[in-house]
């Protein structure tokens, strides 16, 4: 027996056109040309760091459907680890950056251990509280962390690669050194998203009870997602420390966790390129509006509300028409 049936074509031709490799290439090209088109290299550096932070956050928020309000702890944990290792132990900055990323992953594991007993808004509340614990630790141990003043006094020394001396003190050199780390992280993220684990995350986002009824270890997958997200967000924080040559205590603040949500939603949650674009839009809006008014946060907030109401898939999500890696 043959039964003719008509089914809709897969949505999101652009998503199919870009695919995982295309999305990664787009992200890398975007970051590579950023300092060439923006007026200041430091602005490009901030977009890169915040874009990487949002991309790491997107792994749990956009792909696994888990709302965390404490990701600043992973970002700040990475930043402080890098700064402290350079300042107190004199570790070379590339090693300190790697250690910062690992520290971010450890924070992610702590989050998983303490918060995964809860779900939904309760999980979000626990992560918010855990994030604030990180902030309070930085304030309490001011003799180590610098307290309100942040961590200062470390400098990224020049490094030699194949006889070529690269000095991070030069903004453009620093940017492309940071870009090298970000490129590796984004490639790793893309690999994770196209792996079976990436599919498990999507299944959990689409319907958690059904994913569980399929026999998937949803709790283990959530824990791994938090650890991997922490790795990328910790790396972003580490690069931020190199970018600024200081670690402000705000890197652990709840507003930075909120900023991760906003950047991801603005660009398009559950898309690969969206968080990078969202970071560029957020940082760009902050830069432009703060030149005009000191109430830039209000203006950016209104813009954000408008996007949520009228463009809920975010800029890139709307453009792609589908949530694909």
């Amino acid at each position, binding site marked *: *027996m*043959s*039964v*003719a*049936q*008509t*089914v*809709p*074509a*897969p*949505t999101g031709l652009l998503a199919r056109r870009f695919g995982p490799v295309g999305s990664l290439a787009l992200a890398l090209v975007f970051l590579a040309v950023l300092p060439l088109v923006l007026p200041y290299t430091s602005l490009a550096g901030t977009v890169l760091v915040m874009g990487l932070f949002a991309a790491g956050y997107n792994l749990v928020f956009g792909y696994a459907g888990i709302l965390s309000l404490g990701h600043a702890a992973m970002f700040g944990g990475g930043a402080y680890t890098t700064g402290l290792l350079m300042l107190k132990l004199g570790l070379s900055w590339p090693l300190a950056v790697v250690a910062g990323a690992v520290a971010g992953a450890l924070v992610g594991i702590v989050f998983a251990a303490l918060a995964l007993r809860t779900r939904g808004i309760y999980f979000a509340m626990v992560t918010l509280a855990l994030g604030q614990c990180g902030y309070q630790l930085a304030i309490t141990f001011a003799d180590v962390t610098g307290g309100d003043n942040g961590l200062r006094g470390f400098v990224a020394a020049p490094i030699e690669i194949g006889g070529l001396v690269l000095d991070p003190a030069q903004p453009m050199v620093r940017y492309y050194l940071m870009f090298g780390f970000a490129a590796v992280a984004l490639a790793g993220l893309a690999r994770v998203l196209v792996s*079976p684990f990436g*599919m*498990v995350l*999507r*299944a959990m*986002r*689409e*319907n958690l*009870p*059904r*994913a*569980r*009824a*399929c*026999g*998937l*270890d*949803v*709790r*283990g997958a959530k824990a791994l997602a938090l650890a991997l997200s922490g790795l990328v967000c910790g790396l972003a924080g580490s690069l931020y420390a190199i970018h600024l040559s200081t670690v402000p205590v705000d890197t652990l603040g709840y507003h930075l966790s909120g900023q991760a949500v906003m950047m991801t939603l603005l660009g398009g949650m559950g898309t690969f390129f969206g968080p990078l674009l969202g970071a560029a839009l957020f940082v760009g809006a902050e830069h432009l509006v703060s030149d005009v008014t000191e109430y830039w946060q209000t203006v950016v907030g209104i813009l954000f509300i408008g996007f949520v109401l009228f463009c809920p898939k975010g800029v890139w999500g709307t453009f792609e028409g589908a949530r694909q890696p």
Partner: protein
Amino acid sequence: MSTVHTVLSAPTAGAVPPVPHTAGGALVIDGLNAWYGRAHVVQDVGFAVAPGEAVALLGRNGAGKTSTLRAIMGLMPRMSGTISYAGCPLHRAPAHARFHRGLAYVPEDRRIVPGLTVRENIRLGLIASRERRDEDTVIADIARTFPRLRERLDQMGTSMSGGEQQMLSIARAVAAGPSLVLLDEPSEGVSPLLVDEMYELFAGMKAAGTTLLLVEQEVERALEIADRVCVLDQGRLVHVTSVDDFRTDAAAQARWCAL
């Protein structure tokens, strides 16, 4: 602009039933209780299913059949009692560990995972198992077992008809070659033609050595492949008998299974 694909379902003749890849054994349930909040939906239920046997779990709506299956799979929020499979205690194991032991579950209401293609839904079943079988081999096996899915592998699962989604739900469950399959009302809302196909498949699975625990509202359908019948009523196991005895016991059918 959206386009449409026209697809033709493949003929179903010659379907090859899946063969269990995991070692089977007896499922023994004793003193099983389960709750939804304060509602005590499964009360002191105990029965056993021998390796290769097909047992039909019958009863009216709300009798506790689905809750019993969910409790066996570790999917109930609160439960007590003991469950063992092939001599291994399962009652303390998380749901995914029970799948690793060779159990598989086809939930009621054709519960495929939305947002994934047919191939990805099948792949989920493979990921859930501990046995790392080659994906291409599994997909080829599934395509032989479920010819209807063969042409639709890269189509979104939710774009298929209800019956085909039910087939996909079964395909996902058997992808890893489980030795015990729990089927929850597989014929519900499915066209009679597809139900025939489905039951041919179940008979083939049973012949290949797969143990089946089947919840079904259509009593006659269940009796086609079952060896024994367990009847639940108001959360309690009230009757255990052979298929032949149950088939001729009109009073029992009217008392516990009439809608």
